[in-house]
């Protein structure tokens, strides 16, 4: 019951075979085959993940790091095996650099409260960009309020790319932290995080990368990126909800105080004072999400079995096809047209509000996201209250794109669109 071995990579990418790994896809919605294009919100789970979590509860469930009985040893081996797999997946130097958290949001809050809050004061600056998710904005606003530091925002261009010249100007000796999305969830923009990180670190800033939309779409190597922190959630990467990862450079994590107090994060407790456990446990207070960690480990094994590069290539081809088909729809306007983009396509359609699109498309079996995507400043920038967003995963097909286009044509017709 240790780490799951990574199967050999298949020669070609067989999307029909991939789809069979996802039981949820085999159903009808309003009488139509389900076309799931809301992957940037959360991805579906392959059978391997469902079975690993089920097997854990059936065969190994116990609390970790404390029992001497067999089940506890099994549970601990599975939980720590998942950590090893994450370390390998991100190419972190050490397993101690992998902290299990609830998700990307909690990871960023941990850094804001444990790294930034004790160190920052008036005159210090935290730099973010205009395309961040609320999760990479609000925790910094909170810490600015607590410390007197100020929040600076790098503007974006009309295409939805970070304004590099402005970034260079805003980055200064007072910049203590630069926090940036790897991939914009609202626009699909892939930010040049390696270059941005190098520039920010050269200016003396710590760098946090919000990888929630990054890890599902490309190989991430934290040593090559040379960032101080990298955060992601399991559920956007075919794993369960309720678990995510904070990667932190070991020396930085060691210098940080614990964030939450409780079980597992302590070494000794006396009323006169307590001492903290070593990394990574110092940051894992309370019984962790053990089954979810097992699910995350299985999800990473699954992704590696397909090959993250193959998934990325499949999604890139699908995105190109979607952009071509969608651009032929009269009255459709893309929101975000970055040159380097992941499988996320945001758009608005003349005369049909995104929320109506969401309902109309659902009737055709097509699940998309309609709304502000937890990125209200991005909506303000483009002067729209909301957008419709289609986002792709390893199991989507050209047929899914065709169904989306047909449903959009239906929406135009229903609302009396011309052209």
């Amino acid at each position, binding site marked *: 019951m240790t780490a799951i071995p990574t199967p050999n990579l298949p020669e070609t990418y067989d999307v029909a075979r991939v789809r069979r790994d996802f039981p949820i896809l085999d159903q009808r919605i309003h009488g139509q085959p389900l076309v799931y294009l809301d992957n940037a919100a959360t991805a579906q789970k392959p059978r391997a993940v469902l079975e690993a979590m089920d097997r854990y509860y059936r065969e190994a469930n116990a609390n970790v790091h404390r029992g001497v009985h067999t089940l506890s040893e099994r549970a601990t081996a599975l939980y720590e095996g998942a950590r090893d797999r994450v370390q390998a997946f991100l190419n972190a130097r050490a397993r101690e650099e992998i902290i299990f958290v609830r998700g990307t949001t909690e990871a960023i809050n941990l850094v804001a409260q444990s790294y930034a809050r004790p160190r920052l004061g008036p005159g210090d600056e935290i730099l973010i960009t205009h395309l961040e998710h609320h999760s990479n904005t609000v925790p910094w606003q909170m810490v600015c309020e607590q410390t007197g530091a100020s929040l600076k925002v790098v503007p974006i261009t009309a295409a939805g790319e970070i304004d590099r010249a402005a970034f260079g100007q805003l980055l200064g000796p007072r910049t203590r932290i630069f926090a940036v999305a790897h991939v914009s969830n609202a626009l699909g923009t892939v930010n040049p995080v390696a270059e941005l990180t190098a520039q920010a670190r050269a200016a003396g800033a710590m760098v946090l990368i919000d990888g929630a939309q990054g890890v599902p779409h490309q190989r991430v190597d934290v040593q090559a990126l040379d960032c101080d922190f990298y955060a992601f959630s399991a559920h956007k990467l075919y794993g369960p909800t309720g678990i995510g990862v904070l990667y932190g450079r070991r020396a930085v994590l060691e210098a940080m105080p614990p964030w939450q107090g409780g079980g597992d994060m302590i070494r000794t407790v006396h009323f006169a004072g307590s001492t903290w456990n070593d990394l990574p446990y110092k940051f894992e207070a309370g019984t962790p999400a053990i089954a979810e960690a097992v699910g995350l480990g299985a999800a990473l094994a699954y992704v590696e079995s397909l090959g993250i590069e193959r998934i990325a290539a499949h999604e890139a081809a699908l995105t190109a096809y979607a952009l071509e088909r969608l651009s032929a729809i009269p009255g459709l306007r893309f929101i975000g047209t970055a040159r380097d983009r992941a499988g996320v396509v945001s758009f608005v359609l003349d005369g049909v509000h995104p929320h109506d699109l969401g309902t109309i498309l659902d009737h055709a079996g097509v699940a998309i996201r309609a709304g502000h995507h937890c990125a209200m400043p991005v*909506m303000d920038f483009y002067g729209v209250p*909301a957008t419709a967003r289609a986002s792709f995963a390893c199991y989507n097909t050209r047929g899914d794109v065709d169904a989306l286009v047909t449903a959009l044509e239906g929406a135009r017709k229903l609302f009396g669109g011309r052209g």
Partner: protein
Amino acid sequence: MDLRELYQDIIVDHNRNPRNFRPMAGAVRIAEGYNPLCGDKLSVYAKIEDGCIADVSFVGSGCAISTASASLMTEAVMGKTVAEAEVLFADMHALLTGTASGDPARLGKLAALAGVKDYPARVKCATLSWHTLHAALKGELTPVVTE
């Protein structure tokens, strides 16, 4: 369920050509409504004379359900007494949340919104303008927020 039950012609028409879609100078009552989930935002204006709604209008942006609901609402309450409008508010709330008894046809054109009750995620879109009117008539200054 047929999508046309939700998007009836009258809804589509009022979305494309909303009635009484204008700000009002010298309005006696103004209230703002906001649905943070959708980003729907609207302002309702009302002029009250001798306990009657002498004029009512709205501006804002929202989905078809929210726009059509606001448009139909202004038509329905124009000229009514404040008390009658409050009764209609209660009736519409019941209709949209699926707690109404009796034949929705008695509500006239407003009955076109009855389909909304089958779309839980969209009920707030249809009730936003009514809550905002209610606030305007009560003279409440805090913006109405539905979510």
